[in-house]
């Protein structure tokens, strides 16, 4: 047994190291935000957010990229939300422990680990080529939807698990069928969690570049997409091109920073709204 003083000294050092680790992460965050905010401060104006680019992308704003990102995220949502929630409902409410269920869960976990560029390859092979959609909002949205699916399923399942068994049992005891029980006694309580998880997943999809690289994103389009089969501009792709392929990299660096800030801002806002939504819905339910 060590002497007390040695033990405490060890703990002092040990915990000190742990505190340093935490501080390192905070430092990283602070540096990242400081760099982005300070170098894009003058760039973010109302014009930047509402005007299209001019003069070979060296002036003007990024409106088409913002709109494009919003459009493709909506399509992602339409595709992944019903499928994701449905799968979660099956897994949590209906499925019994079996090899099939185990297989489904392994599939979900593996899908969440598939690299984003492989989703991009899949999107090109299936949506762009085999189904002949071409490079467009639909192909990109579906590809992103597939990528977001594991996330939506996991988050929805967590939400469903959070509803106490007694809610279901009570309803069943009163003679309701399983679906009726789910519809009235489980879903309303799980919805806040499901929504939160979904919005968090969509926030991630909004920031992704690799899946949309070859399935629909474009750099300089003369207008906004007017149909599902049009190409679109998107903020992550815009940032990528602005910082590596543009013909006047130094000149547009501030615009690149501005795009980074808006992108991070949008993702951050989505995350925030998801968490706030869960908080308020939970509060409302408690009253």
């Amino acid at each position: 047994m060590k002497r007390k003083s040695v033990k405490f000294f060890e703990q002092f050092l040990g915990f000190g190291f742990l505190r340093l680790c935490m501080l390192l992460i905070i430092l990283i965050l602070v540096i990242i935000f400081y760099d982005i905010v300070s170098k894009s401060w003058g760039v973010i104006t109302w014009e930047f957010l509402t005007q299209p680019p001019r003069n070979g992308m060296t002036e003007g704003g990024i409106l088409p990229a913002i709109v494009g990102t919003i459009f493709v995220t909506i399509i992602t949502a339409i595709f992944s939300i019903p499928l994701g929630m449905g799968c979660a409902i099956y897994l949590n409410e209906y499925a019994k422990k079996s090899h099939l269920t185990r297989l489904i869960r392994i599939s979900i976990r593996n899908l969440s680990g598939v690299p984003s560029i492989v989703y991009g390859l899949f999107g090109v092979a299936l949506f762009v080529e085999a189904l002949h959609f071409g490079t467009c909002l639909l192909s990109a949205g579906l590809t992103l939807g597939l990528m977001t699916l594991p996330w939506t399923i996991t988050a929805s399942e967590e939400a469903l698990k959070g509803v106490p068994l007694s809610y279901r049992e009570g309803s069943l005891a009163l003679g309701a069928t399983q679906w009726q029980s789910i519809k009235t006694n489980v879903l309303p309580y799980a919805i806040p969690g499901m929504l939160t998880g979904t919005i968090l997943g969509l926030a991630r999809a909004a920031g992704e570049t690799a899946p949309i690289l070859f399935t629909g994103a474009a750099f300089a389009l003369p207008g906004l997409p007017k149909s599902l089969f049009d190409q679109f501009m998107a903020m992550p792709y815009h940032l990528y091109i602005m910082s590596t392929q543009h013909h006047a990299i130094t000149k547009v660096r501030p615009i690149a920073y501005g795009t980074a800030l808006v992108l991070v801002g949008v993702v951050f806002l989505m995350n925030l709204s998801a968490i706030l939504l869960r908080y308020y819905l939970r509060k409302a339910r408690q009253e």
Partner: protein
Amino acid sequence: MKKISIVLGIFIMLVLSNVSYAANVLQVKGSDTLINMVQKLAEEYMKANPDKLVSVTGGGSGTGIAALINKKCDIANASRLMKGKEIELATSRQASPVRIVLALDSLSIIVNPGNGIESLTVDQVGKIYKGEIKNWKEVGGNDMPISLYGRQSNSGTYDFMIEDVMKGDYSPSMKQMNGNAQIVEGIKADPSAVGYVGVGYARNAQGIKVLKIANKAGATAYSPLDTANVKNGNYPITRPLNQYVEGSLTGAAKDFVAFELSAEGQRIVEEEGFFEISQEYQDFNKNAGM
């Protein structure tokens, strides 16, 4: 929740699935060397013709040509010629590209301003990029290992260097940059660097030095910025900048190309740092149908 998403979905599709917009836009894709110039041309063209829409994107000559073969664009900007197998592929897909020449480029070899070298021969440039010459002192400079910057395989300039300057493959330690501008950025920060860019990028860039190039050892070395010596062929690394147009030259594509080849268009070409086409290429274009 599901009901809401279904309703939202239908609503969105109604809003979005209108007349397909893409059909009215002339899609121009490809070379990073040309993009600056062609974007400016497109902007001026659209100002003069408000009912016309042109979209210009980059990605490299290879990307543009692939898009043409895959029938995903109308015009491919190419800083090199289409390869034999590309032409075969195009024909097998019922695409029939017509080549026109838009401008002239004197490919510029650039180094960091701190580098003592002022000129190189074509042969030396080739050996440097093949990795056979590894240190600046071998060509009369300081004792520093040479840091290679170049493009990626989707670039026409990448191919042009292989065909015309190196006649062999690149050293695998060359850093493959995403575009001309990234090469310039790299050179600015790296005292031991060498890179190649289209003259439009070299002319207006600050913080880099443009080397003079000699045809062979002992001959006079000329600068790519020297208009007279480029136009009379003294500068050894010159190339035509091309556009491959899908199908016979008709309609929207022909109209835009006509603007590019007009006096106004060629003035913009020179403004962007490149050179207007010579008489030889003007005749070539006429034969192609312009």
